[in-house]
């Protein structure tokens, strides 16, 4: 009780996590495929940004030819990965973590806009079923539903120009497609900056990156979940 008086209230106690009787345990929540997916995607996006900027004449660190080759191959590989990832998300049901939700959205937004400067705790407590805070879920769903499709959609249309070059005004349409591709690609770069920056909030940067390498993170477990894991999936429990 005395602690509570000096420290900001813990998330459970501020009523933001609907689980007052949970305990926090280090649990495997990012399966191997999701980590592989994450890092392949991260690497791909870095290569795509680098080669894209090169092709666009922003830098001349690699030849245009190599840039086109890498950009094309990496983009197609990433699309293939996304096919697998989409399959994974829907077969495992983990797509639900990306569903935007209103509950707690304001609290998280308020935290980043205000609370973080006051030294407050992050209002969201990760649980076994929900590892994304409402703002993250909103951002990722926007990324997955709008931004990424715009990039790979325009990219594919761009790449397959020779199949539709007979359309009237095809060169102009190509220019439009290329400009959208470019604009959205820059927005993705902005997301990457934001994504990396947010890792510095709440935990240390290392603490933020670690779960995506080891796969485990502290999440809130209900007594039932904990009991289940203790009995049937001990391999998911680290401590």
């Amino acid at each position, binding site marked *: 009780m005395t602690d509570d008086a000096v420290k900001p209230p813990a998330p459970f106690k501020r009523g933001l996590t609907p689980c007052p009787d949970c305990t926090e345990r280090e649990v495997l929540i990012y399966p191997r495929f999701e980590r592989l997916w994450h890092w392949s995607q991260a690497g791909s996006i870095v290569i795509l940004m680098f080669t894209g900027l090169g092709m666009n004449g922003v830098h001349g660190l690699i030849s245009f030819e190599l840039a*086109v*080759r890498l950009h094309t191959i990496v983009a197609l590989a990433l699309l293939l990965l996304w096919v697998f990832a989409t399959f994974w998300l829907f077969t495992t049901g983990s797509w639900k973590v990306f569903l935007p939700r209103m509950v707690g959205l304001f609290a998280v937004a308020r935290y980043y806009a205000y609370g*973080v400067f006051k030294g*407050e705790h992050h209002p969201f407590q990760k649980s076994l079923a929900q590892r994304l805070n409402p703002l993250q879920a909103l951002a990722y769903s926007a990324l997955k539903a709008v931004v990424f499709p715009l990039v790979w959609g325009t990219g594919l249309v761009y790449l397959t*120009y020779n199949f539709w070059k007979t359309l009237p005004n095809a060169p*102009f349409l190509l220019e439009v497609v290329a400009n959208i591709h470019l604009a959205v690609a820059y927005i993705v770069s902005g997301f990457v*900056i934001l994504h990396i920056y947010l890792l510095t909030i709440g935990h*240390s940067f290392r603490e933020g990156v670690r779960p995506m390498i080891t796969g485990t993170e502290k999440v809130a477990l209900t007594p039932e979940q904990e009991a289940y894991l203790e009995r049937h999936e001990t391999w998911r429990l680290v401590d």
Partner: protein
Amino acid sequence: MGGRGWRVAGLAAVLALCGVIGAAAQDAAPQISQSTTDHSKLKELQKEFASGPEVTAACLSCHTEAAMQVKHSIHWKWEFENPSTGQILGKSHVVNSFCGTVASNEARCTSCHTGYGWTDMSAPPPSEATAVDCLACHDTSGQYTKLDSAAGHPPLEAKGETITGADAWAVDLKKAAQSVGAPGRENCGSCHFYGGGGDNVKHGDLSSALYHPSLDVDVHMSAEGENFTCSTCHHSDKHVFAGSRYDVHAMDPGGTGKPGQIRQDVATCESCHGNAPHKAFSVTGRKLNDHVDRIACQTCHIPSFARGGVATKTGWDWSTAGRMDADGNPAHEENYVQGDGTARHTYLATKGDFEWGENVVPHYAWFNGQVEYTSTDKVIDPTQVVEINRIEGSPDDGRSRIWPFKRMEGRQAYDAGLNHLAYVNVWGPTTDTAYWTNFDWAKAIEAGMAAAGKEYSGQYGFVDTHMYWPITHMVAPASDAVDCHECHAPQGRMAGIAGVYLPGSNPTSPGALIGIAFFLAMASGVLLHTVLRIITRGGKGGKTHD
């Protein structure tokens, strides 16, 4: 073991001996001729000929249709009708930015006619069958040539100069007649390499460097490469050759033709290399194959012209002609030394100032294969650069591609009263009108216009002109092809070409600017957030996790 060793050595010796004997026997065997006729054995050719037409008469006694065939060719007629404009083109009609026009300068210009004695451009070439010059194209003795100012006749004594500018020698017509065969590059080259009055003056991609080019100068004609002659690509049918700069196949959807077909109707790259010549199983190859609908093969594969040490004339200012030196003799300067060490004139009193170029990066333009000439009946705007032969083509017509050109920058005479390009009588050693003899523009232009039968106001001036020469020879090895970034970059080779989207040419396109604005907004948000966290020191609080 030792015995076996001896046996092997003995066998080797016997085999070697057989080889030597075999080789000797082969040397002794008579060479089998490519042709079924050895012309040196023909009785018609066992005589001394007194003139070119006499040789032609002998040729025609067997090759009865040859003259008729030649007379249907542009080589003979110097005339071509532009199918899209109906304009009558060809050497006998057009004005160029070199020596101008054939009219009034006939015997000099027609020295390269594939005939004898065409001395009046207002009339068709001579009608006699024997006026056709068979030897110009078929001599293989290497010693047949034509005088530079005898309307196509060969030198029969060592006097004057030949069409390549060499001192003339007495041609042995009998030897030439007995040597005839398929045209080699020397036959074509002695006229086509010297267009405009000197080596590579006109075309830029046709020079004496192509007689014995290294691989990097011309992969097709180099002995290290394919060792093609001109007619390997420029197929002939009834003495009419495929390929013409008046009628360029700017795009050839026919490709290599049907299986088993050997296309002989065109001289295009595609007729051998097909329409998807790059590797189909590589990203780069596929992407390059995607280019062929818009980009001519030549655009990438001829990175520059006038390679191999022979310069081409890139500028010719007639207006400065006529300067005499201190002794009152026509002035001349030779201030350009080309790659092979030969000095080229940079000024001649007869012709004015010249500029030369080697390894010249081409001018690029959409091209449908046709050109529209500014004929002498067209009114020009002398305050603007006059396009002597405007390149036709557009990105939207479905038959144009981006082609490389030599752009010749000229300044030449025009009728300042009527605003027409002028005919000029430049050549005529015995006339009192020819500019090269008398250095009097007024007389020279008047005579030129009169010879062409054109109206002339009596006033003349000089106007800036551009003339375009499609570049298609001197194909470089693939490794020397134009690099992607030479076009896909700001201010690259395609700068100014409309109707095609060129990735990489504009890093600040609208899409890029919008994207960069978003990116900067997000990045500055992050920066602001960081600063605020540092100021409030609040970011630390979150680190202690409990």
